[in-house]
């Protein structure tokens, strides 16, 4: 069994549950949209994928992206425009 980690570009990806995004919305329609648009549809981009014997086991989807923005906003206490630092 071979373990292959394919990293696309930079590896520092700040991960958090999408709960925060959903909790803020409290909107069932938005939730239904997110349920589809964030992970389904045509997926062609190079996420971080971990493959075992050529079977993709896990990927970090775009949930990561939205979550990270929200989290960053929370941590900084302000909406973000432009570049920001990842907290250490």
């Amino acid at each position, binding site marked *: 069994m071979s373990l292959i980690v394919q990293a*696309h*570009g*930079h*590896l*520092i*990806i*700040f991960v958090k549950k999408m709960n925060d*995004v959903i909790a*803020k*919305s409290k909107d*069932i*329609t*938005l939730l*239904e*949209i*997110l*349920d*589809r*648009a*964030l*992970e*389904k*549809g*045509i*997926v*062609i*981009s*190079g*996420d971080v*994928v971990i493959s075992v014997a050529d079977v*993709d086991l896990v990927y970090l989807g*775009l949930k990561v*992206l*939205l979550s*990270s*923005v*929200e989290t*960053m906003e929370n941590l900084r206490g302000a*909406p*973000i*425009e*432009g*570049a*920001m*630092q*990842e907290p250490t």
Partner: protein
Amino acid sequence: MKIYIYGIIDFNDNLNNSIKGLGDRYVYNIPYQDIGVVVSNLPEQVLGKIDSDYVIEHEKVLESLMEGFSVLPMRFLTVFDTKENLISMVRYYYNDFKNNLDRLYGKVELGVKVIWPGESIRENIINLYAGNSQKIRISGNSQAMDYVTDKFQEYKTDKAFEEEANSRIKDIDRFFNNFVVEKRLEKLKSQNLLLNASYLVEKEKQEDFKEAFEHLRNVPGNFKYLLSGPWPPYNFVLLSKKSHTFNNLDKTDIFDRILNTKT
């Protein structure tokens, strides 16, 4: 300036500035043979402000497209650096796209979710087994045997729980069978979320489907139901070709801009 992709359509002509997308930019069609890629130009400053509102914009574009075309929705935030790379992607997937566009023509996706009292159902099963003493025969009390007994009890409980779920899901699914071309059923996404179903339905059969949902809803009991749609066929696009990293597929840059990461 990046190129943001909304989806693929069965149309290779202009959209004539009829739809607006992310960052208030007009959406336009990039033709490739007999299909087209629907995109808009994405200014850099928009990338820094991506939030859930943009997902709504993304969905709005798809909704407009659905009225006139067969659409294969792109996952949110698929962005390309150059038109050349985008075209090479379409070239790579052309056959897949074409097949899907044909197969999904005239159909929409409808979502059905069902909540059931999973926790109490599990409790009932546990009590059933505890009372019934479904113990394996134990010869020589030992820690190992106790361990197996516990694990076995867990196993039997899980099994019974799943069987109950499967049976209920079958009952629910039966309501829609006549109006459905394809389906994706996600069982027990969480203990209480019994079913997360996506159904591919012909446009003309939508009303029948909704009626069936009303019948389902009226079944006596304490289940909760949700219907949503019509959606572009997010759950029904099948790509036969393996994922392929295209040059300059712009994931990295997006992360960079938003996270300003340093390696």
